[in-house]
């Protein structure tokens, strides 16, 4: 077998050294009831690279590749161009096959990269400190709520109705076991989010208010007033961002007074990957909150010769030391995705990030205007970045999305898919546009949509 270096001679010599007659002597502690007489039945035997590759390619071939068709899906996962050098870097064995940097003398590569990553994320979010990543945006969102309850010593979270439904589901699932959470079931269909309604639900018992920016319908609005209202009641503002590219164009959450900013980093460097692995980003505006943060933190220090170096620090917050009193049970994070993010961010820089955001927004404006011209289609949003909601007059968007797929267009995410059973959202279609979208793609979507609507009307 190509991954196993021991020869039968080696095995024999080693058993002799151990003083065992055969390999099963080393498994004597396995009780009789659990001993097997050979390889597990019902599974295939080993296979060559060629055979495995053939099998996997057959499966891959059954999926429609986003890059092969006009593509407009978003809702928390965005298709951006990832420069070729990103993958080259993350496939270097020294990064790919390293472990969590517990031995800093031989892990400075990972550690310095994490220090740079933390700086990039903190600056992008307008925060003082970012951690070295969490699993993904949705779990980071829950960790933010849990942190807010530790900081404020209160246990109620107010969730905006326009928070990604998977994110609020994750928070509600976890909160069943820990505290109280209030949440809207689904967003109201209107051009502007109901921030006044949201702030009116903040009271003295509130630990935090959680708002997505841009929100699940693609809307963007100034959250400064929400921050003030939260702070007035001793609550924290948690801002969730699922599209980091937006922050190249719009104000940072930290600038608007967010206390904890979390999000999904997948857009930068990571790719779609059918939903994972992704990259949880987590930052705080006030450095005094750092000891309540979950996850790993990399800090600067010096070595015994006075040279600058980096280490994992403030580890006493973590499970391997604090056990049942840890700030989180997280152990593995999303290190390699953080590297991909950081490399892509380095290639972009300030200039590239501004340009990338501007290009996304430019194309999204073109798409919004074009789609709004299709009879029976109207644009919901006043303001948006690269994703917006259109209403399909009298038509269930889910059916439209399926029909578009049959015509070779991946036309967006229907809100019906995200909120099954919520009647008022069934006609809403979420459309995302990035720098990978061409004006031809937009025209194709508009034309096919128009044809579908006409077809149906007949």
């Amino acid at each position: 077998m190509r991954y196993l270096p021991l020869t039968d001679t080696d095995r024999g010599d080693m058993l002799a050294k151990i003083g065992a007659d055969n390999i099963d002597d080393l498994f004597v502690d396995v009780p009789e009831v659990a001993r097997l007489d050979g390889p597990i039945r019902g599974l295939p035997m080993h296979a060559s690279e060629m055979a495995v590759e053939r099998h996997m390619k057959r499966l891959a071939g059954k999926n429609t590749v986003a890059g092969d068709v006009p593509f407009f899906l978003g809702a928390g996962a965005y298709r951006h161009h990832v420069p070729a050098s990103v993958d080259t870097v993350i496939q270097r064995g020294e990064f790919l096959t390293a472990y969590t940097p517990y031995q800093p003398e031989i892990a400075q590569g990972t550690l310095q990269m994490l220090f740079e990553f933390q700086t990039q994320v903190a600056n992008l979010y307008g925060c003082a400190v970012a951690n070295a990543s969490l699993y993904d945006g949705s779990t980071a969102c829950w960790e933010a709520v849990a942190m807010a309850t530790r900081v404020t010593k209160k246990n109620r979270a107010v969730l905006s109705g326009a928070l990604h439904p998977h994110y609020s589901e994750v928070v509600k699932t976890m909160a069943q076991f820990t505290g109280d959470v209030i949440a809207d079931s689904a967003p109201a269909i209107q051009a502007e989010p109901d921030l006044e309604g949201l702030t009116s639900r903040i009271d003295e018992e509130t630990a935090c208010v959680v708002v997505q920016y841009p929100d699940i319908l693609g809307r963007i609005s100034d959250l400064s007033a929400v921050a003030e209202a939260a702070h007035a009641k001793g609550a924290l503002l948690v801002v969730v961002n699922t599209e980091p590219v937006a922050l190249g164009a719009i104000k940072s959450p930290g600038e608007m007074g967010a206390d904890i900013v979390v999000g999904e980093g997948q857009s930068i460097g990571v790719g779609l990957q059918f939903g994972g692995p992704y990259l949880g980003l987590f930052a705080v505006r006030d450095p005094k909150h750092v000891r309540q943060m979950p996850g790993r933190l990399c800090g600067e220090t010096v070595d015994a010769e006075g040279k600058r170096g980096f280490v994992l620090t403030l580890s006493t917050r973590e499970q391997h030391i604090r056990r049942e009193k840890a700030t989180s049970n997280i152990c593995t994070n999303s290190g390699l995705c953080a590297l991909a993010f950081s490399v892509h961010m380095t290639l972009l820089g300030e200039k590239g990030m501004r340009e990338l955001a501007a290009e996304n927004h430019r194309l999204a404006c073109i798409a919004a205007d074009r789609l709004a011209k299709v009879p029976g289609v109207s644009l919901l949003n006043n303001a948006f970045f690269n994703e917006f909601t259109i209403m399909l007059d009298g038509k269930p968007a889910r059916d439209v999305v399926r029909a578009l797929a049959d015509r070779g267009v991946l036309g967006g995410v229907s809100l019906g898919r995200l909120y099954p059973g919520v009647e008022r959202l069934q006609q809403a279609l979420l459309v995302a546009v990035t720098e990978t979208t061409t004006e031809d793609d937009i025209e194709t979507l508009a034309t096919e949509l128009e044809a579908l609507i006409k077809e149906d009307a007949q």
Partner: protein
Amino acid sequence: MNAPNKSGWKPQMEVADATGEHVTTTGNRALMLEEPLLFEIGHAETTGVDLPEVDPNAATRLGSLKREEPIGLVGLTEPETVRHYTRLSRQNYGIDLGFFPLGSCTMKHNPRLNEKMARLPGFADVHPLQPVSTIQGALEVMNELAHWLIDLTGMHSVAMSPKAGAHGELCGILSIRAALEARGDAREVVLVPESAHGTNPATAAFANYRVENIPATPQGRVDLEALKARLGPDVAAVMITNPNTCGLFEPDLREISDAVHAAGGFVYCDGANFNAIVGKVRPGDLGVDAMHINLHKTFSTPHGGGGPGSGPVVLSEALAPFAPLPYTARTADGVVHLIEEEQADEFAREHFGGELSSFGRMTAFHGQMGMFTRALTYMLSHGADGLKQVAEDAVLNANYILRSLEDVLHAPFADSGPCMHEALFGDKDFGGGLTTLDLAKGMIDEGFHPMTVYFPLVVHGAMLVEPTETESKASIDQFITAFRSLAERAIAGDESLKQAPYFAPRRRLDETAAARKPKLKWEPQEV
């Protein structure tokens, strides 16, 4: 004192010391190149991508939210970027470079076919919310992987979405809580062995359980009688690691499971050490109710400097109805189904005889697809026969190390029978105030990644060595020679070890200073 080496080269510590005479102008040492921080070499106006210039007069739909202030990013061109990260990478130790015997982490070779397959556009460039008709291949990957996991563990179902081992633990414990609550049986306590991974008590506490320790026998195993005596109507679950963190198989697990079930509780098995028994023993045969599987350990997906991982959780029939969505389950006809929110009610009615009782959702989307494709590729490569050989070789290598070093190093459980895939040593015999940490740093100079140190907590100065199955005998023999030499030096109280490593990119780092005045972000120097 140094391990013999074929070239006859002898390290000269004074030369490598920065205070010595061989100092370079750049601070570089031939292939070892110092690299400044990105923020010290990059510029706001530099970029490594070609995008249209921003038109400052373009109309926007951003409302009043245009970002006016600088973000604070810097860029590099592509050649500079590649060089920056290549130089950084060379300051890292990885499996590709050498032996990485980090106990309980299973640092085995990461096959490159896995990487190639995960990058097929049909897997890598697919959106999780595409219409189901366009993602049949992705769902098949999940189903096939689920099928393997269920067969390898002898369990009923598998929850695919947990993102890593600790997330999987939480999934298992929450399933248990949901199952107990469904029968109106609120329980308060989770029993955890003292030797458990820190994630176990942290997880139980997160799920609002009180954690109590289970004592161990002097032979390093769960004290069956003490455990039985503690069981009662308040115990929700027992969390056990098998093979345990002392590197031993728990021979009483079946009896433990029966006792826990008789007392109305559930058995959670930490699957971190599954590599020792994959293809050899099925946890389902031992009465386990839930177990996470670290795809990044047993099934060779890369650790990536700390993730991403993937932690699917296999479940017994009793827990299956409570699994988080999405999950996969095999029905009586042998078919494996992927169950999402929309199918869940109907599936539960048909197969679990009731309404949906999933405890909820643990993450957005479906789980770590990129890890699923890698793990499935690995399983198909090895097959049932190869995986059995994986466990056998992993266990053989560990026992070989244990028996080759027990004469020189304190091996607390050497008399407890064969170890599984890890050999455990302690620092009891070290002299001159030398510690496990000193020996570990000495390993770095010898060109190895150190073993896991100070874990499990039940052994003083613990050193947990996990060779895995992907090391050759020559590689293990070289490690044994180096380890023996270092152990002898530590026992003799060799002071020079206290300053090791001498040859790494950095000497020992001041962790106290880092924690007292945390500097967690680059700040521009005041001019």
